[in-house]
């Protein structure tokens, strides 16, 4: 049986983090917006999250 090297495991773990944490499609979508629209997006996202938490 051939085992993964520590470097390979580290690379796989990093890929997993990126896959979970970084959405390049969303980043590209944000970059199309103006700074003012990005602020609107943030405020709405925070409000939505707070409303969701209150329902739990």
């Amino acid at each position, binding site marked *: 049986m051939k085992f993964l090297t520590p470097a390979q495991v580290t690379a796989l773990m990093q890929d997993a*983090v*990126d896959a979970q*944490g*970084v*959405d*390049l499609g*969303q*980043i*590209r979508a*944000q*970059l199309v*917006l103006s*700074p*003012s629209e*990005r*602020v*609107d*997006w*943030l*405020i709405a*996202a*925070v*409000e939505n*999250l707070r409303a969701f938490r209150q329902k739990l």
Partner: protein
Amino acid sequence: MTFDPRVICRILAEEGTEFVVIGGFAAAVRGSTVLTFDIDVVPDRERSNLEKLARALRRLNAQLRTGSEVLPLSINADFLDQMQVSLTLTTDFGDLDLVFQPAGPKASYADWADGADHVDLGNRLIVAIAALDDIIASKRAANRVKDQAALPALEALSEQIKSQT
């Protein structure tokens, strides 16, 4: 309490305060998708600016935010002058962190202002927003759990912006 960082910036600006927005909110203005629930600013420590800052903070009804409670403060320039590293506040428009000594290579208002851009946040509200690479460097240096969590997305954003230019 609603989170309206625009109102916080507008009141700071109306009082003539010199400051640079750093941290997660500045990153969001740059295009970050990482949610943040407060706004971090580096104020100029000049005495006249601290007086303007104190007036703005009183208008914002700023109070001390600790881990578990909110405590009333009597804020004036003398008080602010004694703050060394940071001051975590809550206001009528959301949480506000004053960062007098940011982590990382840029440790003063002048350092941050050097790389910042003046950005229109809407309705002609022009605010100094830190450079994304400066925000990343500061988060790397601070290395808190929340910074570690945000860094992959911020680094991906930086790469995306550079690939577009």
